[in-house]
C-alpha cells in the first residue's frame, strides 16, 4: 500500500501538466469569446472546467503525497504546496459555480486562479530543476563579458575566482559555487534526493543513504568524487546523465579541496586550520585538462600507419591503451619514444611485450603521468629500467616475465607506491630475491610462474553402485510417517517390507523389494485394483 502511494506521489510531475494545459486552453477560449463579445457555450465550458478541477485535485493530492515522503523540504516547497492546494480549490469553486449557473463567481474564480497557477507552476519547476533554472541563460549572458565561462584549449588564463590558488581551494570561495551549480538543484535546501543535501557543511558531512559523502584527506574514498568520476553512462554517475556536468577543472578543484582535508571556512578569506599539515593540492590535473584536452589526431594517425593498436578505454575518454603486438619484433626504443611521446599524458596501458625495447623505454614509461599497466615481457629491460620505473606514482601492474631483471630490481619494486601485481616468471630474480620482495610488500601479488596446483581436499574412493535408495516420493511418504495400507506386495504377493513404498492415489502402498515398485508403475491401476 505504501509502495502504491509512493507511485501515486511520483506521478505528480506527470499529472500536474494536465490542469495547467486544460486551464490555459479554457482561459484562452474565455478570453477569445469575451473579445468577440460572446459567451462560451456551456457545452464547452462545463466539461473543460470540470475536467480541470478533477485533475487539479489529483495533482494536489499526488503532490501532497510526494512532499510528505523523503527528499523534499524548505520554504519553496511549503509555498508550492499551498499554492497548489489553492489552485485545486479555485478550479473546484469555478466548476461548482459553473454548474450552479453562478456566472460571476465562475469568472472571478477563473481570473484569480490564473496568476496563482503560474506562480505554483514556477515554484514546482524550481523544485525540480533548481532555483533560477528558467532565467539562467539570461544571467549567463549578462556575466559573459566579465569572465569567459570556458577556457579555450591551450589558453593559460582561467577564471580568477574559480582558480585554485597556491593556498588551495577554499570552501566558500571555490568549492561551494561548484556544488551550487552542479549539485544543489537535487541535493540542496529544497530537495535532498537519496537523503543527501550538500548546501551546508553540516549537511554535506552528514552524508546520505549511501553513506558519508566526504572522507577528509582521501578523495578516492569520498563518495562525492567517486560518483562524479564514474563514466557518464554508469548508473551511479552523478550528476545524472542529461544534467549539466562539472568540468574537469571543477572536479580537480574538488579533489584538491578534499585532499587538503575538506576544511570549511566561515568567512570568505578565512584560512583552513589544518592547511599546514595537509598534503599539497594538485593543480597539475586541472592544468593538464585545460592545456591538452584531447589526444592529438596526427599522433593517433601516425600510430595507425605504424600498425600500432590504440584504443580509448572507454570510447570517448582520453585514456588510451597502446599495444605494439602486431609489429613487436620491429619496435625499438626510438620507435616507442617517437610514436608514444606526443600522447604521453593519455597513456594508461602500454603493451610492449616481445618488442626490441629496453631500459630507455622503461625510463620513458616512468615519465608517463597516468600509466597504470606496463607489459615489458620478453624485452631487454634490466634492473636499471625497473629502477627508473620506481619513480612512477601510478603504475599498478607490471609484467617483467621473460626478462633479465634480477635481484637488483627487488628494492625498486618494493618502492613502487602503487604497484599491486608483478609478473616475474622466467626473470632472473632468485628465490631469495622473491622472498625479500614478499617480505617487503606482503600485499603485492607476485606471479613467478610457480603457482602451486589446487590441492586435493577429499577423495571419494572408487564408486560402487546399488539401487536401494528410496525414490523421492517414498521418502516423502516415510517422512510423513505413513504406514503401508497393504500387508502383501501387490506385484509378487510376498510380505511387505515398509522400506519400499510408494504413494498412489492418496494411499501408501508397500512392496517386498525395490524392483516391484517399477513394475507397479508400469500399470498402477491394475496393481492397485488387485489390492482390493
Amino acid at each position, binding site marked *: 500500500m505504501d509502495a502504491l502511494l509512493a507511485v501515486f506521489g511520483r506521478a505528480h510531475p506527470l499529472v500536474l501538466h494536465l490542469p495547467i494545459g486544460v486551464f490555459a486552453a479554457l482561459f484562452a477560449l474565455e478570453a477569445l469569446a469575451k473579445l468577440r463579445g460572446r459567451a462560451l457555450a456551456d457545452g464547452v465550458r462545463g466539461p473543460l472546467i470540470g475536467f480541470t478541477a478533477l485533475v487539479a485535485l489529483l495533482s494536489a493530492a499526488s503532490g501532497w503525497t510526494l512532499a510528505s515522503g523523503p527528499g523534499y523540504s524548505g520554504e519553496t516547497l511549503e509555498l508550492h504546496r499551498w499554492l497548489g492546494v489553492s489552485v485545486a480549490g479555485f478550479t473546484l469553486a469555478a466548476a461548482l459555480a459553473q454548474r450552479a449557473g453562478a456566472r460571476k463567481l465562475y469568472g472571478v474564480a477563473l481570473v484569480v486562479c490564473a496568476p496563482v497557477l503560474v506562480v505554483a507552476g514556477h515554484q514546482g519547476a524550481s523544485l525540480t530543476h533548481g532555483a533560477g533554472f528558467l532565467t539562467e541563460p539570461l544571467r549567463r549572458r549578462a556575466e559573459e563579458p566579465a569572465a569567459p565561462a570556458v577556457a579555450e584549449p591551450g589558453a593559460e588564463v582561467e577564471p580568477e575566482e574559480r582558480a585554485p590558488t597556491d593556498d588551495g581551494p577554499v570552501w566558500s570561495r571555490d568549492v561551494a559555487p561548484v556544488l551550487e551549480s552542479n549539485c544543489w538543484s537535487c541535493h540542496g535546501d529544497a530537495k535532498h534526493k537519496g537523503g543527501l543535501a550538500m548546501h551546508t557543511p553540516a549537511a554535506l558531512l552528514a552524508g546520505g543513504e549511501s553513506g558519508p559523502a566526504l572522507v577528509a584527506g582521501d578523495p578516492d574514498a569520498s563518495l562525492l568524487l567517486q560518483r562524479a568520476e564514474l563514466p557518464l553512462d554508469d548508473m551511479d554517475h552523478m550528476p545524472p546523465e542529461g544534467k549539466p556536468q562539472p568540468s574537469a577543472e571543477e572536479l580537480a578543484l574538488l579533489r584538491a579541496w578534499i585532499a587538503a582535508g575538506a576544511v570549511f571556512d566561515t568567512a570568505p578569506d578565512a584560512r583552513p586550520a589544518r592547511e599546514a599539515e595537509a598534503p599539497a593540492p594538485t593543480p597539475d590535473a586541472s592544468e593538464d585538462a585545460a592545456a591538452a584536452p584531447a589526444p592529438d589526431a596526427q599522433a593517433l594517425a601516425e600510430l595507425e600507419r605504424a600498425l600500432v593498436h590504440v584504443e580509448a578505454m572507454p570510447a*570517448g575518454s582520453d585514456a588510451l591503451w597502446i599495444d605494439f*603486438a602486431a609489429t613487436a619484433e620491429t619496435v625499438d626504443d626510438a620507435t616507442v619514444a617517437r610514436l608514444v611521446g606526443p600522447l604521453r599524458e593519455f597513456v594508461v596501458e602500454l603493451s610492449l611485450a616481445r618488442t626490441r625495447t629496453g631500459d630507455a623505454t622503461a625510463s620513458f614509461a616512468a615519465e608517463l603521468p597516468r600509466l597504470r599497466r606496463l607489459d615489458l615481457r620478453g624485452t631487454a629491460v634490466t634492473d636499471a629500467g625497473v629502477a627508473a620505473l620506481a619513480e612512477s606514482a601510478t603504475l599498478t601492474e607490471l609484467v617483467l616475465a621473460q626478462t633479465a631483471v634480477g635481484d637488483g630490481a627487488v628494492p625498486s619494486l618494493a618502492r613502487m607506491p602503487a604497484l599491486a601485481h608483478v609478473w616475474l616468471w622466467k626473470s632472473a630474480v632468485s628465490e631469495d630475491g622473491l622472498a625479500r620482495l614478499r617480505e617487503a610488500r606482503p600485499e603485492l601479488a607476485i606471479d613467478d610462474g610457480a603457482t602451486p596446483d589446487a590441492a586435493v*581436499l577429499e577423495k571419494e574412493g572408487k564408486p560402487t*553402485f546399488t539401487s536401494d535408495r528410496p525414490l*523421492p516420493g517414498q521418502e516423502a511418504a516415510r517422512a510423513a510417517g505413513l504406514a503401508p495400507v497393504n500387508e502383501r506386495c501387490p506385484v509378487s504377493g510376498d510380505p511387505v517390507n515398509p522400506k519400499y513404498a510408494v504413494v498412489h492415489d492418496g494411499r501408501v502402498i508397500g512392496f517386498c523389494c525395490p524392483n516391484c515398485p517399477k513394475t507397479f508403475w508400469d500399470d498402477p491401476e491394475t496393481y492397485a485394483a488387485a489390492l482390493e
Partner: protein
Amino acid sequence: MHPDQEPALELTRRRFFGRAASTIGAGLGSLALGSLLTEGRLFAEPAGAAPRGPHFRPRAKRVIYLHMEGAPSQIDLWDHKPELRARFNQDLPDSIRQGQRLTGMTSGQARFPVAPSMFEFSRYRNHQDGVWISELMPHTASVADELCFVHSMHTDAINHEPGITFFQTGNQQPGRPSFGSWIGYGLGSANANLPTFAVMITQGLGNMQALSARFWGSGFLSSEHQGCKLRSGDEPVLYLADPPGVARPDRRRMLDLVRALDAKSAAESLDPEVRARLEQHEMAFRMQMSVPELADFSDEDEETLELYGPDVRTPGSFASNCLLARRLAERGVRFVQLYMRGWDAHNNLPAEIRAQSKAVDQPQAALIKDLRRRGLLDETLVIWAGEFGRTVYSQGTLTETNYGRDHHPRCFTIWLAGGGIRPGISYGRTDEYSYNIVEDPVDVHDLHATLLHLLGLDHERLTFRHQGRDFRLTDVSGRVLKPLLA
C-alpha cells in the same frame, strides 16, 4: 554515424540481393580472408576523431572460447551427484522428469534407467569450500582455484545444430552474426596483421556431428567480421603463399595495379565489398609474413611445449590449437574460437569420454597456466562450454561399466576463467539427478550479456540495424550476472 552502417548510404540493388544471400551462407568468396579487414575503421572518420573503444572500461581485452562440440556429460565431469550411486538402474521419477520433452532418440525407450557416473570425483581447493571434479580432468582440476563453474547453465535447443547456433549467435535459427563477429564489430582489431576472429577445429575421438562454417559467419554484419578458419598443417590460411616464381616485390607491384583498377570499379559501382576486398588484399600481403611466424612453434621452449602435453607437436590437435590460441592472444587477436568435436556420446559414453577428456584436459589446463604466468590471464576471458548437457538416464542398455546419455538442455555445467571473472567459485545448483536447476539458472543470453560486460560492452547498446530493427547478440533479454564478476 558508425562506419559499419556507412554502406547503407550506398545500397545498390545488386548489393541488396548479394547481402541477402550471404546472410544465410557464410559468404563464400571471402571465407578464407573474411575477417581480416578491420583496421582502417578506427580512423575511418576524418582525422581528429577520437579512437574507438568499448562502452566502459573493460576487464578483458580478448576471448578464447573452447567450444566442446557434441555436448560433454556434466554428470561425468563436473556436476558431482554421489547420491545417484544408490539409485543405479532405478527409473527416473516422473516428479523429476516433469513431462519435459526428450529427443526422438530416447523418447520411445521403455525405461529411463538412472545411470550414475562411474568415475571417481575428488574435491579440489578453490576460493569457496572446494569443488568436486571427476578423475577424467586431473590437470584441469589443478587450476580449480582459477575457474568459475556455472552448474546451472540451460538452453532452449535440444539438438546440436540449433544448440551451437544459439550459443554462437544468440538465436537458434541461422543467419545472425557469431559472438566473435559481434566482438570484432564492437571493438575492432587489436592487430592489423592478423584476423580479428580466428577459428580452429580439432577432430574428436568420440561420436562427431557436423560443424557448419556459418557458426562463425558474420550474418548481417559486414563480411570483414567473419571468423577466419586457421587450418592445421603447413598452410594455416589457404592460398596465402605466393605461387612459385613470384617474388615479394612482384606481388607488391601486382597489388598496386589491382588497387588502381579496383578503386576505379569502386567509384563506379559504389559497392562497399570492393573496398573490403581491396583491404583484404593488403591484409593478405601482410599476413604472408605474420602467419608463418604465428604457426611456427620453434621459439617456444621445451618446458612450455611439455606443459601442453605430447600432442602439442601434432598440428590440429587440441594441444596444438591451445598453444596457437595463446600465441594469437598475445598478438592481440580479439576472439579465438576452438572447437573440440566428438562429445556426442549416445552410446559407449565411458570409453568415449575418457578419450575426449584425455585430449583436452592437459592442454586446457596448460592454456590457463601459460596465460597466467605471462600476465595475460587477467585480461583474457577463457570460456569452456558445450551446447547443452547430457541426460542422467541411460540411452540404450545400462550396465555397471557402460551406458550412453542423450541430449539434455535443462541443465549443464560450463566454466569460465580470467578476464574479470571471479576465480575459484561455483555458481548455481542442480537437483539430485542433475536434471533440473534448483538455484540460480543461467541462460545463454545471460552468459552473453555477462561476457560482453567484461569486454566493456553494454549488451543493450551493441546493436546493428538490419531489416528495419536493431539487432543485439542478446536479442531482447540477458542479464549481467554480477556474482560471476571479480
